[in-house]
């Protein structure tokens, strides 16, 4: 049993190593030096305190969107909408952050965070209700919701909430009382994200709710037969998922960007899917997975500056790693289908094509 666990944990590590190897080959084929590229990644992501801070800063929202996707997957839901949920959370935290002017930090900061959490949860809640009571597939609903939310936030930031007397769509900067500080170059938001990872782990593996969530994810009919409220759990899981993504958006606004500006939160929600799969749907493993991606993303300047490597190499490495991690899951899923045709097997897959 233990050995099996070690092996299972080893898979992502090996996948990442192989991905780096393939990345090195791609760099070499481009006529650049993989050694210098490695040097660039080290320099850009961990060589000094500022670099470490940059890595942690990039990893923070990724942990949370990763957790968002994980919570959904545990309940058999594939939340592709983390991006939209994060955007809405981000702009609402910015709004509370700049609009309220007389609050002390102890009230203002958590209030703005809470706004992000609540408004990240709202669109996810709608998707959950649609799924539970109307049978609308969450993949479709979240994709559509993403489009709505991207355009809604764009409009808000370029319209009613736009900073006056300048041309770029963005909200005014948040008040100092809503800013999440950095302590010695290290972003405090990161530690909040880490705490959340443990909270989610505890929730999923040590509480009744977590057990119910997992049961619904593994087999809806069995959960129903056991007297669980499948509909209620579905809505709750989705809402929780959106709340986590919204928190990620709020921390981005309050800890990194300092306002909402369209385009500044690009791709964070989608990276969450990568992280959930790299972490093999384990909340605590989302931390190293996010750190890895954060480190690579933080290196994009140095990759170009030191090694003259196109920053797209990061996406190549991540895609290869993801493919290697996901391939066994898919193959197992296909084999399982053969054994018990039609029955939803690994909970990861229930949301996919059905």
């Amino acid at each position, binding site marked *: 049993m233990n050995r099996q666990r070690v092996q299972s944990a080893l898979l992502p590590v090996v996948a990442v190593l192989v991905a780096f190897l393939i990345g090195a080959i791609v760099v070499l084929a481009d006529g650049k030096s993989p050694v210098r590229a490695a040097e660039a990644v080290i320099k850009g992501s961990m060589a000094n305190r500022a670099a470490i801070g940059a890595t942690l800063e990039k990893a923070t929202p990724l942990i949370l969107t990763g957790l968002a996707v994980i919570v959904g997957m545990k309940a058999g839901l594939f939340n592709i909408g983390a991006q939209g949920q994060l955007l809405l959370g981000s702009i609402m935290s910015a709004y509370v952050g700049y609009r309220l002017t007389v609050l002390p930090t102890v009230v203002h900061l958590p209030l703005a965070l809470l706004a992000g959490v609540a408004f990240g949860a709202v669109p996810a809640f709608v998707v959950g209700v649609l799924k539970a009571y109307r049978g609308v597939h969450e993949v479709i609903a979240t994709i559509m919701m993403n489009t709505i939310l991207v*355009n809604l936030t764009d409009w808000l930031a370029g319209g009613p909430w736009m900073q006056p007397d300048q041309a*770029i769509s963005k909200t005014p900067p948040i008040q100092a009382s809503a800013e999440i500080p950095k302590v010695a170059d290290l972003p405090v938001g990161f530690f909040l994200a880490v705490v959340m990872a443990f909270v989610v782990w505890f929730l999923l593996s040590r509480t009744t709710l977590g057990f119910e969530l997992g049961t619904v994810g593994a087999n809806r009919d069995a959960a129903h037969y056991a007297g669980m409220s499948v509909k209620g759990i579905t809505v709750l899981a989705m809402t929780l998922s959106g709340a986590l993504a919204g928190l990620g958006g709020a921390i981005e606004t309050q800890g990194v960007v300092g306002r909402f500006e369209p*385009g500044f939160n690009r791709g964070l929600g*989608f990276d969450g899917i990568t992280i959930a799969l790299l972490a093999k749907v384990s909340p605590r493993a989302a931390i190293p997975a996010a750190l890895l991606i954060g480190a690579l993303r933080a290196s*994009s300047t*140095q990759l*170009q500056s030191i090694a*003259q490597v196109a*920053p797209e190499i990061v996406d190549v490495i991540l895609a290869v790693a993801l493919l290697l991690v996901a391939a066994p899951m898919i193959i197992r899923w296909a084999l399982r289908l053969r054994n018990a045709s039609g029955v939803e097997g690994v909970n990861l897959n229930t949301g996919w094509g059905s």
Partner: protein
Amino acid sequence: MRKTTGALAGLLALSMFAAACGGDDADTGSGSAETTAAGGATETTAAAMERGFQGDCASEEVFCIGLVTDVGKVDDKSFNQSAWEGAMQAAQELDGFADYIETVDSKDYETNIQSFIDKKADVVLTVGFALGEATTAAAKANPDTHFIGVDAFQGEVVPNLTGLVFNEDKAGFMAGALAGLLTETNVVGAVLGTDKVPPVVAFGKGWENGAKHTNPEVKAITTYHPGGLDVAFLDPTWGGQTAKQALDNNADVIFGAGGKTGNGALIEVAKKDGAYCVGVDTDQWETVPEAHPCLVTSAMKLIDDGVVELAAQVKDGSIEGGNYFGKVGLAPFHDFDSKLPADVKTEIEQIIADVDSGKLPTGVN
């Protein structure tokens, strides 16, 4: 056997999904084919001049130019590419070095600018309106480095920051005037990047006014990309679709202005017999060969010339803060030179001269 095929298909789908989610969401589709072609193009230019700071930039004698793009690419065949070509040319003429960093994440503007300051670049060239704020902040913090902001209009004068700006309305007006003369359906179309960027709006309004100047009957269909700054210039699919809509609505001259989005429009128009298209920023005859069947000219901002000029001014110390207005104009007609009626050419030349001198106002402020 069938199951295996299913698994493989799933694997493939997942890998495509990962690729799509990883980065440039908007830059898929027709964009990928372009990139390969462009890669070749940049390499040929780069052959003359090696990219990178290969000398001691901290030294007085060694002149180094660092370029930072917006979330765009130096091989975009228009805006960024033009600036990069200018930087390389300047480096060559001034016997110095040039290097670039492409911004992947908007949150990294500062980091990217800072990396060139750390490398002791003499000139930091930031390309695009969106970098304006980060550039101003960096200029104030680093008075010994000179900054050039392409398209960044300077409201207040910072002594070591020069905005390389253009009268896009003039270029748009010239192109529109030609379109007004060429159209047979009396409908002209414009497919533009976002209206959140003032120079794009100036292009669009100038184009409309120019077309109406030479052809009062003309109807102008002008469409701006609805997305944010992050995608508006990277969406050739939308550009193509929008150009097609304009064609379906009888437009027969289309202006594509907005990085890859505009390129998508040009390539779409090229598929239709008898329709004309007009490129933007650089002479796109050189950069988008797929558009040859329709590309009659391009509304040019001579960014490369402006960069070369300003870099030389930095080197000899004559540069001033504030704004520097670069030249605008129409690109050569190339294959259409023989096809355009002589009277059209005479008239457009007169208009170009009058707009250039300010005698003919564009009606855009």
